[in-house]
C-alpha cells in the first residue's frame, strides 16, 4: 500500500505551521531558532514528496542545498547567539530591547 502524496504534504504543512507558531510565540532564542529549522525541514519533506511523485531529481537536489543552508544558518546563528549571550547573559527575546520606537 502506498501513502498518497497529500498525506506528506499535509504533514509538511503541519510541521511548517508548527515552526511558524514556534517562531511567533516562543521567547527563548534557541527555541525560536529550532522553530526555523523545523520550517526548513517541512520544506525538505515537501520537496522530497514532490520529487518522488514527479519522478525527477531536482527536488532532491534542492533538499541537499536547503540542508547545507540550514547548517550554515545554524553556524552563523549560534555564533550570533553566543556573542549576544556573552554581552548580556540572557537568551530571552524580551530582554533584548535596547532599540525600540
Amino acid at each position, binding site marked *: 500500500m502506498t501513502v498518497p502524496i497529500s498525506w506528506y504534504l499535509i504533514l509538511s504543512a503541519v510541521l511548517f505551521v508548527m*515552526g*511558524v507558531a514556534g517562531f511567533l510565540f516562543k521567547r527563548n532564542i534557541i527555541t525560536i531558532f529550532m522553530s*526555523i529549522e523545523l520550517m526548513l525541514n517541512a*520544506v525538505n519533506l515537501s520537496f522530497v514528496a514532490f520529487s518522488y511523485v514527479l519522478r525527477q531529481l*531536482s527536488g532532491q537536489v534542492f533538499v541537499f542545498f536547503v540542508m547545507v*543552508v540550514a547548517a550554515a544558518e545554524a553556524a552563523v*546563528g549560534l555564533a550570533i547567539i553566543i*556573542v549576544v549571550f556573552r554581552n*548580556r547573559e540572557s537568551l530571552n527575546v524580551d530582554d533584548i530591547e535596547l*532599540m525600540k520606537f
Partner: protein
Amino acid sequence: MFNEFFSRQDLLLIKPAVLLALFGCGILLTDLLHERRHKYLNAVTALLGLGFTGVQLALIQRAMSAAGYSEVSGFSGGLVVDGFALYFTWIFLIATAIAILFSVRYLEVENEHHGEYYALMLFSLVGMYFLATAMDLITLFIGLETMALSVYVLAGFLRGDRRSNEAAMKYFLLGAFSSGILAYGFSLLYGLTGSTNLRAVADALVARPSGDPVVYLALITTATGLLFKVAAVPFHQWAPDAYEGAPTSITGFMSTAPKAAAFAFLLRVFLVPLAPLRPAWEGLLVVVCVLTMVVGNLAAISQNNTKRLFAYSSISHVGYMLLGLVAGNETGLKGIAVYLLVYVFMNLGIFTVLVALRRKDIIGDEIEDLSGLFFKNPVSAVFMLIFLLSLAGIPPTAGFLGKYFIFLSLIETRHYVLAVIAVVFVVVALYYYFRLVVMMFMREATDPERLNISPGVAVALAITLAMTLVIGIYPEPFIRLAAGSVLVPFR
C-alpha cells in the same frame, strides 16, 4: 575540462562570481599576514577585486553586443545574463565599492579593522550576482542565502557593542524566518509545475486552471518571503532595528547593495514565474505599496536616531519602487531601475557624511549630532543638503528622476489614486528631511570638534555627489541604460 556539463559559455557567465569569491578567499588568507596598522590593504585588495570583476563584466557585455545577443544563458538555462542582470550587477559593484571606500575610516575609529569585513562584503556580492542572473529556483535560493548570511555577520561585526549584537540577532532571526517561508513557497511552486526553471514554472502555471487554492498558497508564501527581503510593510519590522544597530558603514551598505539585490530577486520572480498570476498579486501589491509609504513616512517623522530615520525613509522608498511594479508597464520597470541607481548614490552619500561624523567618543547617529554641521564643516553640510533634497525628490537632483518615471507610469496605467497618495507622501517626506536640514544649518554646534575627512571618505563623497547631480541634470544616458535593463514580463 569542457564537456557536456560545462561549456566555455558557462565559464564566461560565472567568471564575475568566481573572481569575487577568489578575491574574498584571498583577503581571508592575506589578512592573516597583515599587521594591525596595514589592515587598509584588505580594502585595497577588495577594491582591486571589484575592479577585475567590473572588467570581466564589461568583457561579457562587449562579447554580447558584438555577437548581437540580448541574453546569454548557461548551465542548461539555470543562469541567464541579460540587460537586467548586467545593470543590477553594476549597481551592486558600485554600491559596494563606495561602501568599502568609507568603511576603512569607520573600522579604524571602531578599532575593529579585520579583513573578514571586506571578505564578507565580496561573498555577499557573489550571492547578489546569482540573485541577478539566476533563472532557477535553486540558484536563486542559494544566491539569496549567500548574500544574507554574509550580511547577518556584517550587521553584528562590532562584537563588543550590544546594539550591533541585537541588530545581527534580529536581522538573522527574521531573515532566516523569511527564507523559510520563501523556501516553502518554492517547494509548492516546484510541486505544482514539476520544474525549478523559472520559465518552465511560468509555462506550467499558465497551463494550470485558475482558482487552485494551492497556487494561491504558493503565491502568498513566495510573495511574503520576497517582501520580507525588501522590507515592505507589514514585513518591515526587522529593518529599523537592523539598520540602527549595525555599524554605520554596514547600514549604508545594507540599505543599498543588498536592497538592490533583493529588488532584482523580487522583480525576476514576479515578472517571470509569477507573471501568469498577475491578476492575483496586483491587488495585494497595491495594498503593500500604500501601507509601506504610509508607515515608512509617518514613522520616520518621530525618529531621533538618524540611522533609524533613514531606515524608515528607506522603507518608504521601497513603497515608491514597488509602485513601478504595480504599474508594470515599461515606464514603471524603467522607473524602478533608475530609482535604484539613484537611490544607491544618494543614500550612500548620506551615510558617508554620517560615517565622517563618527569619532572615538561620539557615535554620530543621533539627530543632535548633526547640529551646527554647517558651521563646523560647510562643505559636508551642503553635500548632505543636496542628498536630502534628492531623497525627497526635488529637481534638479537625481531623486526627482526616479520619482518622475514612477509617477508617469502610474498615470499611464490610470492608477490616479495611487499617484495622488504617492505625491502626498513626498510632501510628508520633505518635512522630516527638512528637520535634519534645520538641525544642520540653524542650530549651534554642540561640540566644536572639526570633522575628520579621510581620503576614502572624500572620494566617496565626491563620487556620490557627482552622480547625484549628473544623473539629475543630464539623465539621458542613464535613462537609456535603465531602458536596456527592463525585464520583459513573461507573456
